[in-house]
């Protein structure tokens, strides 16, 4: 990501998906993530914030993070051995990105 300019940008990455019980069917597709550098800052809280938090929140954070602002479903075809049949799976990909509200990471 070193070449990325500040801001939040579409970033292509390749996924390989395997399906069925023995994972014998598989397919690959290029999806898009949103990756970037958005502005954030932290500074002393105003007195009203100090009072409202019983003097526990002495730092206020104003932050933006790179988010997916628009997504779309794409169908990925999974080919099975010996061309007997194929499966199809729907997955999400990013279509547009934006520096927006930060959320707690789940991982």
């Amino acid at each position, binding site marked *: 990501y070193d070449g990325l300019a500040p801001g939040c940008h579409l970033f292509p990455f390749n996924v390989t998906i395997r399906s069925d019980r023995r994972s014998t069917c598989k397919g690959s597709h290029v999806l898009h993530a949103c990756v970037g550098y958005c502005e954030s800052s932290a500074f002393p809280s105003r007195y009203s914030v100090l009072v409202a938090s019983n003097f526990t929140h*002495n730092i206020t954070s104003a932050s933006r993070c790179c988010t997916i602002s628009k997504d779309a479903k794409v169908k990925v075809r999974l080919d099975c051995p010996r061309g007997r049949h194929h499966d199809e799976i729907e997955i999400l990909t990013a279509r547009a990105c934006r520096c927006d509200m930060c959320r707690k990471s789940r991982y």
Partner: protein
Amino acid sequence: PLRGFRGCAVREFTFVAQKPGCKGLRITTEACWGRCHTWERPILEAPFIHRHHRVCTYSHMRILSARLPGCLPDVSPLYHYPAALQCHC
């Protein structure tokens, strides 16, 4: 020079310290500012978005005290505020 800056750094910050019963005092201190590496990536399983959100904030700080002017007799003139020694994403 900050237009292309990536990362998180200590930066000068000026604010007016105010509390009821005293006059305000303009204070310049060290706070944190920057651009952290963040991303969202679709994944196959719930919740379907893998998220890496980090913000630029204090990693080391000390608490300083200022004396506000013109306080009423029963109001403490002391005003405590944080000063960043180091910041991180």
